[in-house]
């Protein structure tokens, strides 16, 4: 009875694709953002998995990476929400399928 690296990676991959699915299907910009956050978390999971399992003379790297990813994710989230707000001010909506003035 044991779980190895593959299982963890699989969970990461599934979560990643789930996040992608959310990001690509949600109408609400904030929904899309949530999808992106899911993807980033999946990446984090993968990174930690590697730092736990894979052969490296610097296993800490993975964790460090995760720290930065989390930071960046926070920053992105902040900016994204700010933009969402400003769009909302202009258009009274954050539905991405109505945010399509720019096309063709």
């Amino acid at each position: 009875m044991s779980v190895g690296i593959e299982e963890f990676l699989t969970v990461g991959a599934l979560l990643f694709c789930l996040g992608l699915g959310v990001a690509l299907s949600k109408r609400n910009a904030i929904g899309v953002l949530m999808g992106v956050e899911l993807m980033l978390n999946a990446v984090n999971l993968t990174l930690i998995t590697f730092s736990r399992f894979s052969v490296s003379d610097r296993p800490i790297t993975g964790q460090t990476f995760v720290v930065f990813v989390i930071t960046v994710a926070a920053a992105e989230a902040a900016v994204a929400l700010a933009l969402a707000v400003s769009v909302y001010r202009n258009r009274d909506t954050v539905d991405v399928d109505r945010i399509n003035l720019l096309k063709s």
Partner: protein
Amino acid sequence: MNSIDIAGPQIAVLLAAGLVLLIDSLAPQQRRLLPYVALLGLAASAAWTTSWVSRDDYQVAFDGTLSLDKYAVFFYYLFAGITATIVLASIDWVNREGRGQGEYYALVLTAAAGLMFLAASRDLITIFLSLELSSIPQYILAGWGKDEKSSEAGLKYLLLGAIASALLLYGMALLYGVTGTTLLTEIAQQIQASGDAHRSVLVLAMVLLIAGFGFKMAVVPFQMWVPDVYQGAPTPVAAFLSVGSKAAAFAVVTRIFFEGLGADFLSSDWSNLFAALAAVSMTLGNVMAVVQTDIKRMLGYSSIAQAGNFMVGLAAISVAGDQFTLGASGILLFLAAYAFTNLGAFVAVIAISQKIGSDQIRDYAGMWKRSPFLAVALAFCLVSLTGIPPTAGFWAKLYIFNAGIRADLAWLVIVGVLNSVISAYYYLGVARQMFLGDPAGEEPVRTSPSIGLSLGVATLGVFVFGILPMPLISAAQDAVEIFAPLAH
């Protein structure tokens, strides 16, 4: 301390950014000085860069995460120049917008610093951070304008950018997982050691990296945001995106793929990938540009096509022997030439649009009569984009196609030259409007000194390097010397 010294140019820029913010908040009445402070910072960074060239000691710092080499130096100069031009070209717009001038310049400078780091870093984590450091300000800047188009552009750019960087991260994670390190050099060693045992995961990582950076490079199929964002974002920002982030993306991609994934069994794969992507990008970009009526949008599509041209250089990796770096140097040459050309075009567009208040190509009719300087400069830059002598663009194209030929990519080169014919068709359309159309209004279009200066510099560069391309070429060739040892 030494490390700080090596990060000097970026630090100078960042300090300037901080200074700008400081002045903006403490001495608001001095606001008109802000752009000049910014320029000062860029000048300082350039000076710092020059100091190494004179000292001529190249090395790595921060445990090898940041490297100081001729390659980086080339891009330091390039980005300093680009950013300076953008700052100059922004002045009028920012003054009219009147919104957060300090923040604007600070963000531009921050993004510039990010681009510089990107060109110099040799470690996945650092690369990722620099990428975000350059991207997030750009997201903000894209949404800077008050109109809905601008904020829409910002939001689109950000969300797609986030998805792209998620893909990129996953790729990096896999790379790290299979090699256990994030330093490009060590990655290369690990891959060499393990041979193609892990080819499948490496290929996946490679593709994810291409996806992540392809977004910035504006490569099909990761290019779709480009026209929308160029059209919606404030024109100076669009100019910055079209030149700055594209250049940085190519810089880092070249470095990663040469230094990190240069192993034969991989490079054969990715050079073919790049060849295919190049063909698709240039064709799609050009074809779709044909019917555009908005000049910024048209330039967006054309920049997609140009990305295709750049990638010929990446595809030309398989040149053996002393010309191993031909493709890489081609990319650098092309990036430089393209920087001059596209900046010139965009600045001209800024100047014209500000006056006539429209980006519609048909409103450019008779521009020759209203402002000969702008019309000729813009036309000249379009000629350079087409790649007709005597312009820098011609040499860039010639050089990179030559690399393609030598890399046995004749088919790709043929696609390329045919595409330049298509591009000539729509560039010519703009020229036709400007020179043969009847002007809507008679009043001449004046240009502010700052715009005039930036446009003049860009166009002069296009022309001078069109006649005497030698300095640019040799600079590019020196810069890529660092890859020569990797030749196989």
